[in-house]
């Protein structure tokens, strides 16, 4: 209950901040020595919050469905892509981490590549992956793969640290029980890694959303929220509120994914919640 109130207060605070800047800010933005240090606050750049909300209820195009329905559909489409990307990414990250923990040489050989993979510009990679769509897998899978490509990284790195976190005493204890690598992994390393896993999964969730949205845009996939962001932004001058509805949809998608990851965490961290109680 307190959490819900807190979240509502945060949203309210954001709206108040937006509207107060709009009220006091220079409509043409504040420019000092040729550099704009504060954004424009006119209706084209910062529509009223109420206008954005009203825009949600009006039809997307004359006579069409209301914007909010279009947004929900787009969010669901992108959510599907994100989910597949997230699951594939998390699984790949997990397997890479286990491999790197098991074999020292794999850690030394793979970790630089894992880090390097994230420095490749996504925009350069997207057309290549998009080319596989329709041949190796359906077109939307290409977008999922781009999401997975971003999502695997935090899981691989976080999980590796987690798997390496048990103390030497814990590892020796398992050795004294004649437990091999596999059983040490199940009974010691994986449970010990959960505090590292969940923050990594939260990052992976956010990365998967970004990957899905950017992937949709750069592969030209239709039907998702990424496409809507691009389409609506073309109308920025004539219908500024519409641009913000698409962003609202993207933000909502991010929240849903973050919530889903948090829900995943809940049953697996019972001991920590219990211990923290007075």
């Amino acid at each position, binding site marked *: 209950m307190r959490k819900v109130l807190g979240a509502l207060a945060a949203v309210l605070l954001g709206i108040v901040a937006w509207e107060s800047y709009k009220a006091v800010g220079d409509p043409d933005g504040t420019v000092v020595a040729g550099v704009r240090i504060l954004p424009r606050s006119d209706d084209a750049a910062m529509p009223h919050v109420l206008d954005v909300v009203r825009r949600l209820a009006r039809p997307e195009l004359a006579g069409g469905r209301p914007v909010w329905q279009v947004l929900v559909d787009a969010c669901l489409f992108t959510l599907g892509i994100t989910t597949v990307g997230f699951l594939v990414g998390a699984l790949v990250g997990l397997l890479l981490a286990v491999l790197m923990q098991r074999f020292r040489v794999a850690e030394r050989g793979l970790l630089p590549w894992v880090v390097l993979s994230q420095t490749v510009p996504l925009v350069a990679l997207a057309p290549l992956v998009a080319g596989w769509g329709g041949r190796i897998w359906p077109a939307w899978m290409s977008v999922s793969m781009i999401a997975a490509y971003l999502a695997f990284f935090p899981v691989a790195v976080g999980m590796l640290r987690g798997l390496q976190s048990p103390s030497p005493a814990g590892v020796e204890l398992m050795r004294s029980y004649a437990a091999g690598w596999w059983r040490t992994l199940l009974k010691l390393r994986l*449970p010990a890694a959960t505090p590292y896993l969940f923050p990594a999964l939260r990052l992976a969730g956010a990365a998967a959303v970004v990957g899905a949205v950017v992937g949709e845009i750069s592969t030209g996939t239709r039907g998702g929220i990424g496409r809507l962001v691009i389409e609506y932004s073309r109308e920025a001058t004539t219908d500024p509120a519409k641009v913000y509805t698409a962003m609202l949809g993207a933000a909502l998608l991010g929240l849903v994914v973050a919530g889903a990851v948090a829900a995943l965490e809940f049953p697996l961290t019972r001991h920590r919640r219990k211990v923290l109680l007075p």
Partner: protein
Amino acid sequence: MTAVSVQGVRKVFNAGRNDEVVALSDVDLTVESGQFVSLIGPSGCGKSTLLRLIADLTAPTAGSVTVAGKPARRARLDQEYGIAFQQAGLFDWRTVRRNVELPLELRKIPRQRRRERADEMLALVGLSDFAAHYPAQLSGGMQQRVAIARALAVHPKLLLMDEPFGALDEMTRERLQAELLAVCAKTETSTVFVTHSIPEAVFLSDLVVVMSARPGRITDVIPVDLGPRTEATRQSAGFFTAVTKVRKALRGTPTAVTADT
């Protein structure tokens, strides 16, 4: 029967490099069944290394280690011993009961029997009321008792302990010493116990093995015969005589008796 037999053991770390260390040299040690043997000596004398050799957590450079009549490796794979370290090393994410059940789980003992055995062990160390707690909710002394219960859960014939009371306060320590002796007597366990406290070694042991450093070797083996231990034992003349004897052996020179518990 012999519980542990160590013969002609030598252990060299970083062999052939310029930071080579001879941790143990020419070590012979026999622990008879049911005996309580303490290893005592200054830091770096290799007492922990010797315990780890018996546990097959590290392998000797030369010589042989036999546990329960088998090579140390075989004995470890057969889980012939229970072990406890200075840090309790409980798994945070398991309740106290499930921590004690861990070695039983790895032996594939059915759930019902696992639970019975864990409860029995927790009763033995006086923690029945805390079975459903998590380790972080217990004091250091209680955690250490859980670790001992866990070491005893498989009913090992041999108990290996590496300064298990080292991190505890004096009162807790003395109480746990008495509890440990009671448990060992009840379960007829042989014990190898590493410590750097002279009174602790004397109070607990049938045999105090004195070691010295660089290279680590056994310099003296002192039998202690004080009969069944009670709290009065700590004040007895025989206790102080034995303490002095061990201290002399450790320093190599006679010293006055002081009650540094």
